[in-house]
């Protein structure tokens, strides 16, 4: 029964009872009509193509939770428990997910906050309505210090980064160029800018810096989501972009039946679910210019990126898409067209969302964009893009012609079909097998717990991640999920961050699961391919952490590209060190560093299987070989 006022009228002979529902507008009668991938489902809160095929495995489990195989290549193992991460849990609202803010989950960042050469993990936490009103203790974010032995210790309280607000996103950036990574944490409400004090602690300076986005009203707040650092004006200082999702009123939440939400936006496949985002009041995006004195100025309007329509922003990323040396700006908008702002080089941006092909999918339809990934998966020097998407729709792969003209090649690339039943969130390119070709991992998890009550839909609330192997010919192949391995581990996945947590040259993945412990996918792929990683340090007009820098690495006929990025994925921030798989090659022919500040520097690497530190103008200034240390022992 739909949640409208219906009343029983009479019980008549023959046990026939009719009830008249009084408040709904008439719909069309059912008739033969296709509801395929190219049609549109406009009568629900999330944009999708309408119900799609139900997929089950041989044991009739929904493909999103099943579909596992007994044997096959073991790529990842979930070592979260052994690593000590599972004592922490994400808590976001109640389990029923009556309100959209309870379902969005949180991000994760990989950063070396203490500059010991090992990545640490920052996991953002959500909150509850009781915690927001002081009735219960709020859940806290975690800062897991890397103990260098495969384990981690939560030092968030000591470090002063527990947040204790309704957290969503995180971006890493050394905004004051002091050589220590700072953290920007977005909240449902006022955001945090955690300045790194160089002693293992942080101080929230958001208010002083002018980037808190405090609404001034504790009840009516902005739902801030993705954040990304980037130096858009080339002054050598990181600026900050923050996406807005909805304007949220704690006193009048958008629940079904309220005036804040219409009935149609509270249904999925004809079933009552939480409302939105369609039909809800959106919120603006913000671009903050770094003044160089610890403060920022909101230049969103002047720069042309204020999101006048208040679309539902989620994943955001500063990245040079059109290869002109300046960071452009990407915004994944939920259930509305994406933004692609081209950096004009004069402090303003040109909205090329439609002309570029990034606004909509190949059918010209707006989709529920969540997370963003950028990577040169064809090794042609062009950054291609991925946007994750809702169930009953495919995750999008945009091929870049190098000038920022994007084409939806989702089906051609082999990504589209397998992703349709999944709700994709975090995503990232990673060369998991170090063969020199960037693969793709997508973190999944549904937003509606109700899907578990409809097993015939072929989808589940908790879902497994999808790993696509790059075949080197423009196509990807789904890597089978072997039972008991990380690819078979299900969770309500949200944020995902990518990086070499164990300094072994293999890219690992940390997933922040909604209302659960995190997943740590340790890369155990049994390849023996070579690799190198570069930690870049900028000077002059290049930000100290080198965000915005592009590195080209050549081995034989293969030329790979990597970029130093902050933010991206879903509300997350990944390892800023650039990583290159080399295959069987044990010699790098050339490395070209295009520093964000302009200079191009050629670097010769003396060996492989190492993490090199490269400083702008100085070349290699350090190297780390954890495997060498092990061998010496």
């Amino acid at each position, binding site marked *: 029964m739909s949640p409208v006022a219906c009343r029983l009228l009479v019980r008549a002979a023959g046990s026939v009872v009719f009830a008249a529902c009084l408040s709904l507008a008439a719909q069309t009668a059912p008739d033969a009509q296709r509801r395929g991938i190219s049609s549109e489902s406009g*009568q629900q809160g999330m944009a999708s193509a309408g*119900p799609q*095929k139900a*997929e089950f495995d041989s044991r009739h489990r929904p493909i999103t939770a099943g579909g596992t195989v007994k044997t096959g290549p073991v790529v990842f193992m979930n070592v979260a428990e052994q690593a000590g991460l599972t004592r922490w849990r994400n808590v976001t609202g109640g389990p029923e997910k009556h309100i959209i803010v309870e379902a969005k989950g949180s991000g994760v960042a990989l950063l070396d906050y203490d500059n010991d050469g090992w990545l640490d993990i920052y996991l953002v936490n959500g909150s509850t309505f009781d915690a927001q009103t002081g009735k219960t203790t709020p859940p806290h974010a975690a800062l897991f210090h890397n103990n260098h032995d495969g384990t981690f210790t939560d030092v968030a309280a000591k470090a002063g980064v527990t947040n204790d607000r309704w957290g969503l996103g995180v971006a890493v950036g050394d905004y004051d160029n002091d050589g220590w990574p700072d953290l920007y944490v977005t909240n449902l409400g006022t955001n945090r800018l955690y300045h790194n004090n160089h002693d293992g602690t942080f101080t929230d300076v958001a208010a002083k810096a002018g980037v808190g986005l405090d609404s001034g009203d504790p009840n009516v707040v902005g739902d801030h989501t993705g954040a990304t650092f980037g130096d858009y004006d080339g002054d050598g200082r990181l600026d900050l972009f923050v996406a807005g999702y909805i304007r949220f009123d704690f006193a009048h939440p958008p629940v079904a039946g309220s005036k804040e939400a219409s009935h149609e936006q509270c249904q999925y496949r004809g079933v009552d679910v939480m409302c939105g985002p369609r*039909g809800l009041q959106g919120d603006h995006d913000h671009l903050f210019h770094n003044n160089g004195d610890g403060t920022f100025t909101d230049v969103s309007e002047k720069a042309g990126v204020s999101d006048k329509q*208040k679309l539902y922003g989620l994943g955001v990323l500063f990245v040079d898409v059109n290869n002109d040396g300046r960071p452009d700006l990407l915004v994944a908008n939920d259930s509305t067209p994406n933004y692609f702002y081209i950096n004009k080089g004069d402090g303003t941006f040109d909205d090329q969302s439609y002309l570029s*092909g990034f606004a909509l999918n190949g059918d010209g*339809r707006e989709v529920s964009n969540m997370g963003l990934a950028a990577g040169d998966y064809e090794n042609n020097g062009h950054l291609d893009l991925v946007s994750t998407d809702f169930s009953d729709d495919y995750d999008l792969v945009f091929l870049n012609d190098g000038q920022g003209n994007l*084409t939806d090649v989702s089906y051609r690339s082999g990504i589209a079909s397998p992703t349709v039943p999944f709700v994709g969130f975090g995503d990232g390119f990673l060369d998991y097998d170090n063969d020199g070709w960037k693969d793709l991992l997508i973190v999944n998890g549904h937003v509606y717990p109700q899907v578990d009550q409809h097993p015939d839909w072929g989808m589940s609330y908790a879902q497994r991640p999808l790993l696509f192997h790059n075949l080197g010919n423009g196509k990807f192949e789904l890597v089978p999920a072997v039972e008991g391995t990380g690819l078979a581990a299900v969770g309500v996945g949200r944020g995902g961050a990518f990086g070499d947590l164990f300094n072994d040259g293999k890219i690992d993945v940390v997933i922040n699961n909604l209302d659960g412990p995190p997943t740590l996918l340790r890369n155990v792929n049994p390849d023996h391919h070579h690799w190198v990683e570069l930690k870049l340090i900028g000077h002059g007009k290049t930000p100290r952490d080198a965000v915005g820098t592009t590195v080209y690495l050549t081995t034989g006929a293969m030329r790979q590209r990597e970029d130093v990025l902050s933010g991206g994925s879903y509300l997350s921030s990944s390892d800023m060190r650039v990583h290159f798989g080399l295959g069987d090659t044990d010699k790098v022919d050339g490395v070209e560093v295009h520093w964000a500040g302009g200079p191009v520097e050629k670097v010769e690497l003396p060996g492989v299987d190492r993490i090199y530190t490269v400083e702008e103008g100085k070349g290699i200034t350090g190297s780390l070989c954890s495997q060498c240390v092990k061998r010496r022992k």
Partner: protein
Amino acid sequence: MAVLVSCAGITVSQAQIATLYEQGKAAFNSGDFSKAAELFAEAEAGAPGKSDALLLEGKALANVGHFPDADAALRAYTVRHPESADGFFMLGFVLHREGKPADSLRVYTQGAALSTPTAEDLRIVGLDYVLLNDFPDAIVWLKKATEFDPKNERAWYSLGRCYYSQSRFEEAGNALARALELNPKDLRVVTNLALVQEMQNRNEDADRAYRESIVLADADPHTDEWPYLNYASFLLEHDRAPEALPLLRRAVAIAPRCADCHAKLGKALAETNDGLGAVAELSQAVALSPEDPKLHYALGHVYRALGMQDKAKAELALSAKLYGTRDSVNTQ
């Protein structure tokens, strides 16, 4: 002695009224519903409330699609004959056809208090719930309709469609299979069975059913474009654009004002490297549905692929403008 009554200012006898009534029934039975409606109206006017002439007038008017007039006649009849379940059931049907499902349900409820409804009545009740977007209740009543009369093919069909709308594909397939047993040549049923099988990922079965639907559609001079459009869409999704082309050309021929048909044909042409053909079809789609931003977007990107940048920009700007006319609260 003959009893005289006044009819529209003219005095007629009871015998004449009986004749009018019989003539009305004869006209009704011969399919001349307009004439029947007139005759029943005269018979009723001659002897108000004395017979079921008003009920039959309402039925006759419904048969010619004059639902507001039928509504008025049947309302009058139910006032004069509040004991007539048939009157309420017929009025319920007419209200359904008028697009007044809540009113229809109320009237069916009144009828059900007097007599058990038929399977066909229950089918209409189910469809009332469909109009109210209440598919779970629609399923309840359509199931009951099939229990009352397992040979009601339309009830099985509607039940199948409702299950399909709820993504309950296995049950949809079962219901449609029952409908197909009763009428193996029902094009709508075959087409919907193909849709269901496609949703169950039974692509070979779906392909077979779609092909059967095309055979039936080809033999049906009254077919609409949907069988062709459905199968073509299936083929496009399976990277079989060349096979989709003739189907989409047929769909366009049947429904030259179908924007979706032209758009799909444009897409199929673009995928078979006929860029100029794609422009022609997408341009027609845009002309037919100029407010659809998706069509401008598709046309713009075909122009872009052809190197016609100015035209591409113009179309993409139109798409942006159409999407951009809404802010977030109007995203529906």
